[in-house]
């Protein structure tokens, strides 16, 4: 089957999806394709992703690795922002506690 034939058959999938994964799916043996379907059907997304990743042996493998680095960067940026916000909240609360404590001792 060619990519064009796959596109004709899989009308429910986007062109972008088929452009990215179509060539890989076409390279798979029937057994591999069945394994992939089975993994997706049972919600084992990471295992399914591993099967697809194993088929990427050119610069596309590197692109996947770089995309993961980007994901780490995004997670760490969000985490750092969250921590900064929490520090601000803690400072604000401690400021309130200090005001009350000062009032209690008459200062």
């Amino acid at each position, binding site marked *: 089957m060619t990519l064009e034939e796959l596109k004709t058959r899989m009308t429910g999938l986007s062109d972008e999806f088929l452009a990215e994964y179509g060539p890989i799916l076409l390279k798979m043996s029937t057994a591999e394709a069945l394994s992939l379907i089975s993994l997706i059907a049972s919600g084992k997304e990471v295992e399914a992703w*591993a099967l697809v990743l*194993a088929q990427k042996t050119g610069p596309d*493998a*590197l692109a996947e690795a770089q995309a*993961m680095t980007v994901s*780490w*960067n995004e997670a*760490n940026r969000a985490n750092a922002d969250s921590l900064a916000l929490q520090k601000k909240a*803690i400072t604000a609360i401690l400021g309130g*506690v200090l005001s009350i404590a000062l009032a209690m001792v008459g200062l």
Partner: protein
Amino acid sequence: MKRILLGLIIVFTMAGCSGIQATKPMETVISNNAAVAAVQLSTDQTLESAKQGMADNAITFKVYFDAATINIFAYWFVPEKQIYCTARYYNLLNKNEVASRVFLQNVNAGSYADDVVKGLYAEELKWMQAVNDAVQGSGIQR
């Protein structure tokens, strides 16, 4: 006063659940590995050292993921041993573990060109640093 105390508890709980909270021994391992990764990234790698490094990395990422899995369960019962609080980080560690294993299999099968091997190794080293950044609450972009 009760309300203030409740607020403090909520804020400190939030702080505890942000990012990755590693146990002390694990934190040391993660920090040491990140330091080694920085050295590796700053020097040109031969193909052989990149391949060996990827074999080592596959083991390390498995250890990280296993530790996260164990401690996610520990989190529910032993709060002070929490390690990975967020699903986002847990999923990233899971993908790191899987990807490093798949990459190594393909390296051993000779499926990648030399420059791809070196490029993949460099990205894995960045993940190694990123795990440490997560533990430290750092937003450094790798």
